[in-house]
């Protein structure tokens, strides 16, 4: 095993669910002795370590804390206690297209979104042709994104995200993107990145795909690690 790329150590993450959103509501709730907040333990002491070049599937049902875990690794959220550490550049394919602006052209959006994902101007220019070719929307690259079909939009967004220069790639629900041939192409590209030694952390509800792509599976259940090992075994456990 090489050195770890992602270390998650005893991570706890609670969400305070606020039931009141104004002074009036807070006051009324206090008078009626209703709780103002409820704690929700999204992650309750999770630890694991991912080696460089590993492909890991985060498995679990809705609300098990998978997406929270990804957001902690990407730095969007920070843990309440415990620690998350990463090595090198981390980029997420989390909800692709978040940084797109409908009034800008495809070309302008590529540069903007690549910069949001941490790329420099040079890096983007070097990859620009690849990004456009992968998205298959050459003809519309100077059209405003608001005129794109939803499929074209997702293809372009995904294409930018998957061409970013990263060491650790976080992927949330990849197969919601585009039609079948494009999905296959994305999957092939992700495999290629893995072969090139990138670390992958994948969240998906497509269990067959994910257990094929990743050798290791971490099964989360109610904010705890229920199983950590072979991905096929993890999927079996989940389906029980």
């Amino acid at each position, binding site marked *: 095993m090489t050195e*770890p790329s992602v*270390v998650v150590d005893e991570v706890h993450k609670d*969400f305070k669910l606020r039931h009141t959103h104004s002074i009036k509501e807070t006051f009324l709730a206090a008078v009626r002795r209703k709780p103002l907040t409820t704690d929700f333990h999204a992650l309750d002491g999770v630890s694991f370590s991912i080696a460089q070049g590993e492909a890991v599937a985060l498995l679990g049902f809705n609300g098990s804390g998978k997406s929270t875990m990804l*957001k*902690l*690794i*990407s*730095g*969007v*959220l*920070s843990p309440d206690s415990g*620690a*998350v*550490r*990463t*090595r*090198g*550049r*981390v980029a*997420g394919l*989390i*909800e692709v297209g*978040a*940084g797109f*602006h409908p*009034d*800008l052209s495809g070309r*302008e959006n590529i*540069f*903007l979104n690549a*910069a*949001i*994902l*941490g790329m*420099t*101007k040079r890096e983007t220019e070097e990859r620009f042709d690849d990004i456009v070719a992968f998205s298959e929307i050459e003809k519309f690259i100077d059209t405003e994104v608001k005129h794109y079909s939803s499929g074209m939009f997702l293809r372009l967004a995904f294409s930018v995200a998957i061409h970013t220069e990263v*060491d650790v790639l976080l992927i949330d629900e990849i197969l919601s993107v585009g039609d079948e041939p494009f999905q296959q192409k994305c999957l092939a590209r992700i495999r290629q990145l893995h072969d090139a030694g990138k670390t992958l952390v994948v969240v998906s509800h497509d269990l067959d795909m994910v257990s094929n792509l990743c050798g290791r599976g971490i099964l989360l259940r109610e904010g705890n690690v229920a199983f950590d090992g072979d991905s096929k075994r993890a999927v079996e456990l989940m389906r029980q």
Partner: protein
Amino acid sequence: MSRRSPEPSVLTQPGGSVGLLDVFRRRYLLSLIVRKEIQIRYRGSVLGWLWSYVKPLVQFVVFFLAIGVFLGMNGRVEFFPIYLLAGNTIITFFNEAFSNGTRSLIDNAALIKKIYLPREMFPVSSMLIAAVNTLPQIVVVLIIAMIFGWAPTLLHIGALLLALVIIALLATGLGLLFGAINVTFRDAQSFVEIIVMCAVWASPVMYQWEMVANQVPHWLFVLYRLNPLTVAVELFHYGVWYPLDPQGGQVLPGLLAYSGVAVVVSLTFLLVGQLVFRRLEGRFAQDL
């Protein structure tokens, strides 16, 4: 260039940022965000950026007629419309930078919730966008002033630049402070609207500082001058209106010293804004 540590051999904490410094480390992204906003501002309009020149010109005419002629200020203050427009320009910069900075985090919620960026990026870019939008107004004021014989020295130009720096620092600091609070308490937004509404009256834009000095006790006039907005407006008057040699035009007493104070006050707001922002930042992604 990496987002954080370019060193792949060390484990780092994701999302660990060094605040405002990180924004300037990623100035390429900052420049793209600013450019984007500027590009889309007049997208789909025929006159495009001409609107940025039309607006202050119309304002000039309105001020000239309403306050100058009808309220008779033209008789009391020489070159009054220029006086008014100069002060109004710098206050508009402050108002736009401050109120957009306060809303910037909410407006960019989709991004903040999904991708890690130094979040200070948003209030800072709001300020820069406001600065770019202010440029045409400054150009209009200076051209009108030139028609009336504006011939500035370096000191006058320096005063204009100093005023812009003071407002840039102050608006960024306040934008960080109220923007961060606004994520959890949208009250901040309404509060800021009130501050913005008062800003134009709390500084000598529509009137002259002498009118304040004659009405209030000395200590209150000191307080009045401690307001960085007053100083910025007076620096603009000094740079644009004063070189026209207006009759009875007087520089704010102690303008130089109060300019120093304004810089310090603005820097203090920037520091406080940054500290509060960093304290609250951890909750942004879940509160938005």
